């Protein structure tokens, strides 16, 4: 894949390039600020963008803003945001722009294989949310929350769903049959009063939008 990286720390930019290079992805541009990102995307038309949240010039959430602007312009461009913040409010705007987006904590890159896997899933139009962010969302206790109705196993399945994993992947992870996972998913969607949705990322998005609607 042809990748554009936006990250203001030289150290992390180099590290990312190295990891992507090892898995035979081509880093066509590595930039250090938001305007640079927009320019690099226009010039190289990459297959996926990997961007930091906090970047120059303002050192606030320019990277995320740039990602949202890019998505508004090219809704099909997959974007993976790497962040130091577990707050879901950063992720939610991005998730609303549709499939082909991801929000991962930066240290997740250290799990190199998983990171590359997540990158592939986002590039293929999937939705990936960092497990830590999902866990925080799910662990938020609420009064009369339908989440309280889920069994422990169903929670686990929901977490993995939110990470953008397929039923097969969830089955492998939990060491159960795929049929069992399909049953769990159906039960979760029913308990959360969500209508069944055809593809993975819509399923995840539905779940997350539901969670946020509760906030």
């Amino acid at each position, binding site marked *: 894949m042809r990748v554009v990286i936006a990250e203001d*720390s030289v150290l992390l930019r180099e590290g990312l390039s190295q990891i992507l290079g090892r898995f035979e992805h081509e880093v066509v541009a590595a930039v250090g600020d938001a305007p640079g990102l927009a320019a690099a995307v226009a010039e190289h038309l990459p297959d996926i963008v990997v961007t930091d949240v906090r970047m120059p010039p303002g050192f606030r959430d320019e990277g995320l803003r740039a990602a949202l602007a890019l998505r508004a312009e090219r809704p099909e461009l997959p974007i993976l945001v790497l962040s130091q913040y577990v707050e879901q409010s950063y992720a939610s705007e991005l998730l609303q722009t549709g499939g082909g987006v991801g929000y991962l904590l930066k240290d997740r890159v250290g799990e190199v294989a998983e990171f590359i896997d997540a990158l592939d899933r986002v590039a293929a139009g999937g939705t990936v949310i960092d497990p830590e962010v999902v866990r925080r969302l799910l662990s*938020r206790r609420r009064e009369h929350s339908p989440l309280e109705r889920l069994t422990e196993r169903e929670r686990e399945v929901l977490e993995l769903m939110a990470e953008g994993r397929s039923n097969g992947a969830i089955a492998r992870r939990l060491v159960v049959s795929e049929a069992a996972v399909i049953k769990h998913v159906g039960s979760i969607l029913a308990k959360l009063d969500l209508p069944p949705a055809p593809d993975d990322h819509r399923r995840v998005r539905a779940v997350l939008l539901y969670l946020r609607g509760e906030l």
Partner: protein
Amino acid sequence: MTVWRAMARNPLRFLLSSWPWRSIAYLATGPLVAVGWLAVVLVVGAAGVLLAPLVVGLGLLLFVPLTAIGLAAVERRRLRLLDARPAPSPHREPAAPGWRPWLRLRLREAATWREFGFALLFALLGAVDVVVPFVIIVGSSVQVGSAYLVGHGDQLQYGPYGTVDQPEEAWVGVAAGVAMFVVGLYVMAVLAGARAALARLLLVRPVEDELVAVRASRARMADAFEAERRRIERDLHDGAQQRLTGLIMTLGLARLETPSELIDKAQQDARAALAELRDLVRGIHPSVLTDRGLRAAVESLAEGAPVPVEVDVELPGRPDEGVESAAYFVIAEALANVVKHSEADRARVLVRHQGRLLVVEVRDDGKGGARAGEGSGLQGLADRVAVYDGTLRLASPPGGPTILRVEIPCEL
């Protein structure tokens, strides 16, 4: 101590104190100052009129009101004779050095024109200040001396009303003279006190203004602390956090090259360290507050809380950074207290903007009995809120519920 309070005391104490003499000194030196000022005005004014055909002359006329600034400075010093309270100048410091900014500021300031008004009044009233003590002192001296004068064959003529030329009558005059002098001391003290009060009213910066200045400087200091926290947060984010993340990436790559349990362990430790650092940084200053505002930041607090927290934040805009931070940390501390002490099953955070106030209310259904100042951190929060003129109130009867309400003046 002022001359007024001195007069209210026991008359003997007043008469034997230095206050009557200070009053006389104050009244007597006043006309000297007035005459001096009038001389200056005369010179400047005359020069201005003479040079009026040239533009310089008109400029000089502008200086006439400015001469009152000098007079006012002298008057504030003279005020110390009668009034021990400090008498700060009402003028502001010019923003830039040099005489032009100074001149522009002074001509625009209301204080300058108040001082000019005082100067004109002062010059007029200066005549009274001369006449009254003169009549009192000369009149009473003559009365007191009447026995001596009559004894030497003089006689005192009171216009058409009468003549004193008998020793018996003279002794009555002496008594009247002493009485006149005592009353006169009071009259002069009243006159001096009134003049001093007028000077204080027109020439001295009001105490309320001082309070505003102090308040503003406290808020400035709190803002500076806030900026410092943000700087530390930024440094940690750009420094230690990035380096640790880099280390985790490198360890990930190393694991690909040569899988090893030690590398796994090292990576886990590094990730744990990063997670701790992330929590620490969020405690110093949450970037979600800066980036996304109060609502998102409070949601994030609620996400992390082990008790269900209902968040209801509706604001038409964003408050000033200092106020926003104060509100955020109040909520953070209040929720921490709910978790630590209240044994509550649920809590609710409400934030609204009502009638120029930012209103924050944190309520829980716990056991109550919370008190400010018991190491709860509430006192610190109250101080922090007070800096922005806000109030913090706590209602926590035994058995609950506990309600913490903070109101901070704030325009949105």
